[in-house]
């Protein structure tokens, strides 16, 4: 879709750490240019000026975890022409979706002295579980280059170029020695969505899957090779149960390794 002359941007927050919206302020070299091309109409983390909707482009951070938020997301959808979720919380429920595997009431009483005052849902769910989402950006946190790509693509009426293949492909292209083959370091690269810029393997560490599953991953096969390398069922369960635990492919891989 073609963007209007100076489109209005809104940035919304649900349950999250604020890191993905901070990525926009972390675009130090581009921030003023972005503000020149798009009207930052609603972005409470950065401005007390809050311009009323409708908005042309909405960026949504965070997952749905309270009854109030489950209603609020519908109001935001109604006010937004093009809606993009940013980050693991918004696209797959985030780290707080670890509650989905436990009894949330138990969690509440572990942390809070007066659990009766806590208003929370049993599950943390992605935005797409509640409304139609026009585009999803992966990562915990998102890559700021990909964020700029999404904004730029929107302004120019084209599809964002954010490949959904495995991190392995990005890694091979960057000419990095495979940590799994060369050093036997377990790595989720074969099943993880590309886009981070291959950070972990460049720091002698295996990928830990913070961008969530790639398109059509074979997590089962990777789990088998982790088991072959001597990993316990519990360790395999945990490695798939982190920042994108509720993403279907990772959920399946972790629950099949539960005791």
């Amino acid at each position, binding site marked *: 879709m073609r963007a209007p002359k100076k489109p209005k941007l809104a940035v919304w927050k649900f349950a999250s*750490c604020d890191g993905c919206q901070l990525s926009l302020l972390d675009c*130090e070299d581009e921030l003023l240019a972005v*503000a020149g091309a798009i009207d930052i109409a609603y972005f409470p983390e950065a*401005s007390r000026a809050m311009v009323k909707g409708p908005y042309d482009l909405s960026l949504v951070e965070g997952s749905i*975890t309270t009854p109030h938020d489950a209603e609020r997301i519908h109001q935001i959808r109604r006010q937004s022409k093009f809606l993009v979720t940013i980050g693991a919380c918004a696209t797959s429920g985030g*780290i707080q979706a*670890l*509650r989905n595997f436990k009894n949330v009431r138990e969690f509440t009483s572990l942390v809070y002295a007066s659990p009766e005052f806590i*208003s929370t849902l049993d599950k943390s769910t992605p935005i797409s579980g509640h409304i139609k989402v026009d585009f999803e950006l992966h990562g915990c946190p998102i890559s700021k280059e990909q964020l700029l790509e999404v904004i730029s693509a929107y302004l120019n009426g084209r599809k964002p170029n954010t490949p959904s293949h495995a991190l392995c492909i990005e890694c091979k292209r960057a000419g990095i020695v495979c940590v799994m083959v060369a050093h036997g370091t377990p790595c989720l690269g074969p099943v993880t969505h590309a886009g*981070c810029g291959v950070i972990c393997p460049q720091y002698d560490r295996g990928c830990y899957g913070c961008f969530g599953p790639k398109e059509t991953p074979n997590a089962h096969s990777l789990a088998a090779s982790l088991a072959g390398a001597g990993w316990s069922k519990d360790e395999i369960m945990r490695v798939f149960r982190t920042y994108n635990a509720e993403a279907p492919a990772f959920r399946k891989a972790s629950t099949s390794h539960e005791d």
Partner: protein
Amino acid sequence: MKTRTIKVDYLARVEGEGALYVKARGDHVEDVKLKIFEPPRFFEAFLRGRDFREAPDITARICGICPIAYQMGAVHAMESICNVMIDPRIRLLRRLIYCGEWIESHVLHIYMLHLPDFLGYPDAIQMAKDHPEAVQRALRMKKIGNGIMTLLGGREIHPINVRVGGFYKTPTRRELSSLTDDLKWGLEAAIVTVKLVSTLNFQNFEQDYEFVCLRHPDEYPLNEGSLVSNKGIDCPISQYDANLIEEHVAHSTALQTTVKGRGSAHLGPMARYSLNYDQLTPLAKNAAVNAGLEKTCRNPFKSIIVRAVEVVFAFEEALRIIKEYDQPPCPAVDVKPRAGTGYGCTEAPRGICYHRYTIDDAGIIRDAKIVSPTAVNQKTIEGDLRYFIEPNLHLPDEKLKWECEQAIRNYYPCISCSAHFLKLNIERA
């Protein structure tokens, strides 16, 4: 008598979701509530059953603005349980990455979240139209802070290179030296920043706070030190729970942190500065003197100057570390789990961030407690508002509202750090 209600439904330019509610009758303030409606995320609960080595990656996700504070609290606690000694060169690198976080977070707050209040703009982008030089300086300084985090941590938000025992990979001398020119520029820019913010108009407002922070015998505190206050606390961090206690207050739904037997605690730059002035680096001390700061600062509106002084310190300290750096032979020591309880307490940009973990012989976390600085400062902020609003009740609503917001932003409250957040009952106005 007429009752007046002032509400800020969604606090802007803070991290996370909060609101303010004030009830006044005549010239008397009856009630002040800083409401937190950040949804609970249950970190302490789901840490149970995780491997101790996962704690730095998981707790980083509490806050996108100060992930290093959480990572450092976690690694120090785990290392103390497992009784391992860290190479002093690794210790310096941890100090360096923390300097990066201080620079990035403090500069964000000074220029982009706080300065617009003093100069009368809704945000830094509007401010840039009239003050382009200041905003461009801020962006470049912030980028340099993020540059330290990216080089040492792999990325600035949720760094991937920090682990229990050290790092996955340490930089070479040459890699670190590549930061030097930028840091020298940053140091000059930080001194300019102190000058700039020292010329602002400040409210005449001082409180007799109990400042609580870390103190280290040899250096300005970042990662280590004992817990001290200006009203008598002086103990190892393992005594945190005996000194700062969370109480259920009958008249509210909140659990609030108080100093045992006394009142609220004030954490953050003013506490650190006032109790560690003698440990500041030479140029930072000089900048403070030139800005007209006393050795103790009790005016929260002037925290913007103190923050700027700490940015001078962070640049100076980063340059020192890089100059002395010698790459260690191993990026990390091997850490074998053993059962026990350990503590971590470090100086996040907003004040001390406390961690306590219990793990078993297999390294599985059995219990976790994390207290973010904003959770403690919340009570201090409410106290400030009460004293601040009464003499200003003559102001029109809109003006008073903005002034109150500014009084809250003095603390740069980071509400997303919902590890241990309070007042979670959602009152719909």
